[in-house]
Structure formats: C-alpha cells, structure tokens
C-alpha cells in the first residue's frame, strides 16, 4: 500500500479474513488501489449499519453501445470519494470460461491501469465483471479491451451474454458442441447484444446434456439442452466391473432409481428398454465408464425461464423436443427471429418471453411463430373447458 493512502479501520470485515474458505476481504485488500480502500470503507459502513450504500442511475456506457456498462454511484461520495462513481463493466467471457494465463494477465493489466482492481470471475450471467470503474475511464478500458480481442457483454433490455457448459471440450456427455454454438450465436447477434431494443432481457444458454450444468432450464429465455434419440451405449464388461467393485448396487442405486423403470439387472447383464428411456442421465451419471448417450445426438429447445420479477419465477418448457445442432444453425436462427419479432411487437415493457407466453397463451404463441403443437410440450392437456374455438361453423344469415 502506498504511503499517502489512509488506512481505514475495518474491524468487522477483518473478522472475515479467517477461516478455511477463501476470503473476499483479503481480495479487496490485495487489490491495493485507492478505489479498493474506499470500497472496503463503505462496505464496513454497511456492516455497521446493516444497509447498502449504492445507487443506480445515470446512463453511462461506451459510445455506440446501449448495454455492457451498469451505472453505480455511492450515496456517501463525500466520505468515500474514490468510489463516488463505481460502474460495472461486463466483458463477454470466452465460451466455456477457458483462458490462457496470458489472456488473464492481459485483462488484469487493463483493469489495474484503469479501475478498482476488483473483478468477478464471473458474473451470474457469465460475463467477466470488472467491478468499479470511473466514468472517464470507460472509453479507455473499452479501447484496450477491444485492442486485446475482448468486447462487452449485454445489459438492460437486450440479448444478454450467452453462456454454455464445458461441452465437448471436456465432457463425454455433451450431445452437441455447446461452446461452438454459444460462440456462433454470440457473434451472429452482436447488435442485439450491444443495443437494447427488446421489451426486456433475452438470455440464451447452452447445456450439453440433461444435467444442465449452466442451469439453462431455470435461467434462460431460450435453453438448448443436449439430448439423444437412439439407444444408450452400454459397455457390458464395464457394467460388470461396477457390480464387482462393490461401491454401487446396480439394482438399488441404478435400476430402482430409473424414473420410468426401463432397466433390468439380473446380476450379470443390464437390459435397457430404450423406447421408454426419458434421457434423465441418472444411470449414465452413476456409471460413466459403462454407459453413454447414444450416437443420434442433438438438443431440446426450451423457452421462457426467469427469476421472480415481475410475474413470478418460471422454469423453461419444451418448445422443440429434438433438433440437430448443426452450424450455421439456420433453422434455429429463423425460429429465434420469429420469436423476437412477435415479442418485440406485442410484449409489454419488462415482460420476459415466458410471461408473454403465459399472457397470450402457448397455443396462440405457437400459431404466430408457425410451430405445430406437440404433446411433448405439456405434462397434461388442459383440465378446464374454457376453450376459445377458432374453427366453428358460421351462421349463414
């Protein structure tokens, strides 16, 4: 710490430096900047008063972009002048969050020169978050980021930064190239990402299998979950090895836990009724050396997940039960543009697509999008008889 900077007393926060879990307080101290000093100061004040001291507000950003920077100001600028302006910059992460040490040092260097020295690796949507930037430093940070090959992510009512699981880079269960698809869609929709023009946010997430490691079913307006259509691949010798290994009871831990009861184990061989498999992943998760997804792989597209605000939380629901995920994904992009056109035209301000579908009805939505209803979209047909029939016979007056 440089001599001229005043050391603030932070007895409450100092208690969070001990213990086995990595300490964020140590991190703020390690940043070793005047901004980080004041961040620690204002946070200590919050710990004393049990109240936050940040304000949103003001349109801040970089020239030509409407998203990617979130304005943040302290409500105690006189006490903590270094964090009077403390904006967030969202930097679009590389797909799968892969880095080289050089790439990380490049980002660290830019942020050391221009900001607080604090980051989130990563934000909730997936971006690299540069935490705490003064307004005058936004353009210089942006110039250095783009020179280094990085760009901003989304914020506000735009397509938010897409994210994906590790996919085929490391996972044997990935039913399509999640990282390739994520990169492709991100590059295709740079305008939609950087210039908010939607009723509200629109998130895309790519998970390679039904384990859904990026929580796409809970968190994305459009969720691509890898699935397969053919038979689970079985290595019979490895099944026997699991049985002999003693750690797994194949009847109890695998067959009895199958949601459709489609597996039989006679102590020597495993039999799977694949026509009744719902691709839940449990048996494959339990015996990764013996079982694997089939070869006819693709994805299910689900639509409409969101957190509670405004009209309550929603999980995504099945929209396309199976589609091949092949670049350049023209069929999916065509579908996406039809959804965006309809929602942009008729969605209310701050209405996510899931809420829009609830308001107008999935049947109407499908008709407008030009997608046929299929029973895979629902858990059961309606129980209420309030049907708005469209195909009634008119009186000939």
């Amino acid at each position, binding site marked *: 710490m440089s001599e001229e900077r005043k050391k603030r007393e932070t007895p409450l926060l100092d208690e969070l430096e001990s213990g086995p879990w990595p300490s964020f307080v140590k991190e703020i101290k390690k940043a070793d900047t005047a901004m980080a000093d004041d961040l620690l100061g204002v946070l200590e004040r919050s710990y004393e008063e049990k109240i936050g001291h940040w304000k949103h507000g003001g349109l801040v950003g970089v020239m030509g972009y409407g998203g990617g920077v979130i304005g943040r100001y302290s409500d105690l600028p006189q006490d903590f002048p270094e964090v009077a302006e403390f904006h967030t910059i969202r930097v679009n992460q590389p797909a799968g969050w892969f880095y080289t040490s050089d790439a990380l040092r490049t980002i660290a260097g830019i942020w050391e020169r221009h900001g607080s020295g604090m980051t989130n690796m990563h934000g909730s949507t997936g971006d690299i978050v540069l935490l705490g930037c003064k307004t005058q430093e936004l353009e210089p940070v942006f110039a250095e980021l783009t020179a280094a090959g990085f760009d901003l992510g989304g914020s506000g009512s735009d397509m938010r930064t897409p994210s994906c699981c590790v996919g085929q880079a490391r996972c044997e269960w990935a039913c399509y190239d999640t990282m390739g698809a994520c990169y492709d869609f991100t590059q295709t929709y740079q305008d939609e990402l950087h210039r908010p023009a939607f009723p509200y946010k629109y998130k895309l997430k790519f998970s390679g299998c039904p384990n859904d490691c990026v929580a796409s079913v809970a968190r994305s307006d459009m969720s691509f979950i890898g699935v397969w259509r053919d038979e689970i691949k079985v290595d019979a010798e490895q099944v026997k090895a699991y049985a002999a290994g003693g750690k797994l009871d194949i009847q109890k*831990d695998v067959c009895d836990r199958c949601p459709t009861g489609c597996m039989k184990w006679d102590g020597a061989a495993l039999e799977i009724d694949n026509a009744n498999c719902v691709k839940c992943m449990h048996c494959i998760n339990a015996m990764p050396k013996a079982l694997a997804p089939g070869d006819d792989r693709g994805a299910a597209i689900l639509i409409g997940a969101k957190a509670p605000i405004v009209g309550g939380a929603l999980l995504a629901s099945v929209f396309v039960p199976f589609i091949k995920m092949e670049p350049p994904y023209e069929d999916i992009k065509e579908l996406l543009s039809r959804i965006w056109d309809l929602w942009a035209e008729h969605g209310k301000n701050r209405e996510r697509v899931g809420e829009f579908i609830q308001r107008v009805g999935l049947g109407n939505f499908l008709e407008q999008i030009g997608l046929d209803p299929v029973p895979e979209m629902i858990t059961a047909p309606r129980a209420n008889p309030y049907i708005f029939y469209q195909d009634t016979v008119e009186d000939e007056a």
Partner: protein
Amino acid sequence: MSASPRKTDIGPPNFEKFLPPVVKTNYGQWKYHEILKPGVMVHVAASGDKLYTVRAASPRLLSVATIRMFAALADRFTGGFLRFTSRNNVEFLVSDPANIDPLIAELKKEGFPVGGIGPSISNCVHTQGWVHCHSAASDASGVVKSVMDDLYPHFANMDMPGKLRIAFACCLNMCGAVHCSDIAILGIHRKAPKIKHGDVPKMCEIPSLVSSCPTGAVRPATVDGLQSVEIIEEQCMYCGNCFTVCPAMKIADAENDGISIWVGGKVSNARTEPKFSKLAIPFLPNNPPRWPEVVEAVRNIVDAYAGNARKFERMGEWIDRIGWPNFFKLTDIPFTRYHIDDFKHAGETFRRSVHVRQV
C-alpha cells in the same frame, strides 16, 4: 489523434485459442471420466489421452493480484491453461499427473482449497450484496464466506448423499437465480420504500418512476404542494425497481431487511424433473459480520439431509419422498402462515388428498 479505427462488435475471443492441446486433439472424443479424489478428476478420450482437472474454491470477488497468481500457477503446472466453472470455481487443466499434488499444495498455501466435485457441496453461487448492489437486502460475500467456512468439510470431502448446491441472492430480483437450488439463501426486504418527497422532483422523472413499478403500486401524487408519488403498500413486493430509477425511494431498512431460506430445488433432469426451491425459513436477521443465525440454519438443514437422504438423492427428492411434514419435523423448523403460497396459482400447492402420514 489515433489513426486506428474504433473497434466495435467484435464479440468475445474465439475459445479455440484458449484450449490446451489435449482438448483440441480430443474435442468431442471424450469417452469417460473418473473422480480420483476430492477436487480431482480425469477425463479419458477415445485416443487414450487423459486430461486431469483440479478444481479449487473461489470467493468469485477476485483481485487482479489473485488472477495473476492463478495465471502463474497455470504457467507452472498446466502449460498456462485454466478455466472457471458455472459455479465460480477455478479449474486447472493438468496434462502431467505428477503436477497434481504440487499444484494442490500451492493452492492450499495461497488459501484456495480444492474440492467441490461429486457428492459434495460445490461453490456457493452468489450476487453482489452490499459490495456493489443498490437493491441488496443483505451482503452476499459475507454470508457466503460465513456459511462456507462452516460447511467447508463438505466441500473438501465427498461425504454427501448426492450433490448439494447452495446459492445466495441478495434480493428477489435474484440475479443469482437461486430459485432452483438445493438450498437457496435469499435476502429480503419487508417494507415498502420510504419516499423522500422533497427529493422526488429534484432527482426523479415521475412518469418513468411510476412505470418502473411492476405491480402498479406507485402512483403520481401531490404531497405538500410538491409533485411526488404515493405507494399502495399492499401491492408492493419489495423488488426495488422504483429505487433503481429514483434514489428518493429508499427501500433498504436496517431493522426489517434480512434473509429467508428455501430448499429442494434442482435444475438437473437426473431421476426427477427440475424443480423450484420452496420456503423453509421465512425470516432470519442480518447479523454481520458472520450471520450466526443463517449459518446455524443452513447447517441444520444440511445435517438433516446428510443423515436421512439416500445415495444420489437430492434435497428436493429426499423431501418429496418423506413428505414436507417430516421435513419440518426432522429439521425442527416451525411451519407458519408464510409457508402457504398466496400469489398466482397458489391453490396448486394446497393438498387435495388425504394422503397424509401421521407424524
């Protein structure tokens, strides 16, 4: 003046340039994986090539100094290759197994323990809290640090019946989308914003303030001759959106803000369908710096799950099997009127049968 044109809309760097050679060679050709010990797994490709992963905890809020430390460790042990996970862990991608233990030792020395793979508690995803958010009802980092200090043995060892995913969001906007977690810790405001009428005309644009309210609870009003707004308190559900557009609508309230605990959500399709977390504890006080009530409550739920769930069973699957009355009995958590839904579609959670275990 700079001659180089301003670059825009270049998008993120192509991930391919950040992949280790073993990944490039075996992309899409992985055959199986094994967990070798807590925090360490190996992926084996059809070619026979192996990639070892060492997963370490992170507080998510990282200084550039720590990012440089990770980069230096990657240079020493992985040829410079590393990644982060969807739960904010850092993963070192090791080709030479001889580097695993020295890397783990260095990470431990730096204060970044290894674990979080398999039937364990992985990193707790969380939001900004008082560190950076204007609508936070609690701090995120401090609660997570306190809870994970306490649960650390379950991160470092694979001693849970199944995966246990804990998440924290500091208000019900849930930018951490905690609503499908085994245990969700959620900051809550419980009082409508207090309006500083004198500041409204100076700081805020009334039409955008009125339209910011998702439930229409904010309406234009004249107060003491000044243009301001009023709030219909019964319609407010404490989202803080009005404070976002107008700093005169202060929602934070030191005495009434606090934390609620939700359980039994999941996103995976394994065995059972994805499900929402449901309310376990409606309110616990903010008690910084270590939030002892929250730490105790989470540990109590973890212990009940660990002691009673079957192998592979997630929190929500265990509760569905034993029934909610038994969950409240086993955890000794009081059941209150707040546990009964009264929002849209509330009746869907009322019991319509007499399938009741006598407990």
